[in-house]
């Protein structure tokens, strides 16, 4: 699977985009995975919104965008993203609306997307999907079609899109065939020129390095909270990098 097999090579790659100022603000445990966060694709709507001092984000996702417990909402990555962005862009009003419910496939989320878009009028839609489709064995074509449709709808509503793939979950690794769904996500992201936040590789790296113990059987929320905090911060880094006016987009030959 992409990103999984050449882990050791990935480790050897120089950390990209970790300029002194950004690196200083990221906790070390988040920073070890920063080089895996792609930031080559520009986000023009986000850029405009930041210039206008008002950035509205919609996070639409399934169960892995949630944390249980009374502090779940505060600790889950959508809120962590908001707080990290607020630190990075003082003076910009940042709102994060969420529509996250467990056990939703990509297609189910596409169905409710228009309502969400109308309600929160986002400049950026962060779409976490793939796990439930993999668990239910949804047809690949159907999955890829749903992704296309969702991206088109968000763009038609004037929003940029960032995709988030599945979590790395070592215990259920042999039970959920994430592989081809992850590849479809990556391919749709490339084709539609949408950044993909590779949560799987990021968490895999944390698991392999022992940054976070992803194996432990526990009811405690501390590690889960730290993982979400880092994901929120890394997402913020990705958005900051993509929204930098001076950051040149990757030149695509033949275009």
């Amino acid at each position, binding site marked *: 699977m*992409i*990103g*999984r*097999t*050449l882990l*050791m*090579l990935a480790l050897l790659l120089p950390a990209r985009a970790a300029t002194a100022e950004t690196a200083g603000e990221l906790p070390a445990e988040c920073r070890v995975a920063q080089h895996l966060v*792609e930031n*080559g694709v520009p986000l023009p709507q986000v850029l405009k919104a930041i210039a206008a001092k008002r950035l509205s984000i919609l996070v639409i996702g*399934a*169960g*892995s965008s*949630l944390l*249980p*417990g009374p502090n779940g909402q505060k600790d889950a990555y959508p809120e962590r993203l908001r707080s990290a962005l607020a630190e990075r862009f003082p003076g910009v009003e940042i709102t994060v609306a969420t529509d996250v419910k*467990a*056990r939703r496939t990509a297609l189910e989320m596409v169905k409710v997307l228009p309502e969400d878009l109308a309600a929160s009028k986002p400049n950026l839609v962060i779409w976490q999907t793939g796990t*439930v489709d993999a*668990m*239910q*064995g*949804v*047809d*690949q*074509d159907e999955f890829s079609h749903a992704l296309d449709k969702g991206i088109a709808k968000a763009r038609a509503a004037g929003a940029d899109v960032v995709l988030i793939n599945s*979590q790395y*979950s*070592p*215990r*259920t*690794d*042999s*039970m*959920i*065939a994430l592989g*081809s769904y992850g*590849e479809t996500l*990556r*391919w749709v992201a*490339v*084709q539609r020129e949408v950044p993909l936040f590779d949560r799987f590789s990021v968490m*895999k790296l944390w*698991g392999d390095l022992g940054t976070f113990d*992803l*194996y*432990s*059987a*526990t*009811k*405690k*929320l501390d*590690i*889960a909270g730290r*993982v979400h905090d880092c994901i929120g911060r890394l997402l913020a880094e990705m958005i900051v990098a993509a929204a930098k006016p001076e950051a040149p987009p*990757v*030149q*695509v*030959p*033949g*275009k």
Partner: protein
Amino acid sequence: MAPAKTERDLRLDLFRGLALWLIFLDHIPSNAVSWITIRNYGFSDATEIFVFISGYTAAFVYGRAMQEHGIMVAGARVLKRAWQIYVAHVFLFAIYLAEISYVAHSFDNPLYTEEMGVLDFLKNPDVTILQALVLKFKPVNMDVLPLYIVLLAGFAPVLWLLLRAPSIALIASAALYTLTWLFDWNFPAYPSGGWIFNPLAWQLLFVFGAWCALGGARNLTRWLNSPALVGLAVAYLVFAFLIALTWYFPRLGVYVPDVVGDLIYPIDKTNLDVLRILHFLSLAVITVYFVPRDWPALRSKAFWPAIVCGQHSLETFCLGVFLSFAAHFVFTEVSNRVFVQFAVSLMGVLVMVGTAALLSWYKRVERQGPRPPTTRPGYAGGDA
């Protein structure tokens, strides 16, 4: 048309054995060792090799049976083999249930509430176990045997046609493949979607293997020895390798022209994409060119471990699935350090070789036993 030669082609056993090892390594999730397997260097993987060789040996073994004893006897033997594989599949499913029940009972983590939903099927075993028995519900990595069962279940009439009109049989198989692509045919799966390995598409490789065994390969010899074809095959493998590089280094993706990307993606494994067939055929062309049938090294000790595994493919395959469960269990419960991954992978292969060697020995002893040696074609020369 008669089966090509009577002596078993050791290359088949060798490459089927290697394919079984690769399938085992690929089936261990997050295994560092799986970077050596061919799927990382091109479009096709070990499944193509396994299906093609299985078709080849099935035709070789049951083709002779059909000529000597008629379609009824040969058909019965093919079905008996399909039944054996079905039983093996259900046995593996039982082991899988044991593993997943253990995880469901012992694992809890608020980070993974969504992923734990995959264990929900344990709450309604009345549905899932029935769906598993009718091959609609198939856990991860348990898709190959159901494919094999379906291919064998329908094989007797195909073999009958292959023995009379090989070209027509091959054309019919290609036609079914084309129709499957045109009309999106597939077997239904539970809880949704279709089979991961669509038998209506994958049959093409199985039938092609059978066609080669029954004389097709001989007719192709002139082509197979042509340097131009080998050159084409090498060029295609290089192309596939370059594309595969972009999967691991997404930054390189920008060098793939959009036209090429639009043309090749998505590479459909479920329906055996043409790109995958071509990749397998290129590998086969190069293998046949550089590894002659009578290559003395095939009888050397170095290749014996893979060959012996290939000669007991069903047992080795099932053992491999079980060992990949076990290896994953070790990674999660003991350690997933890289050296442990290497050690566990190597141990797994050694266990597969040891078991296959034991089976070989037992078969020899049985034959030399008090009963007169049997020459049942269904078992002579290894498994189909």
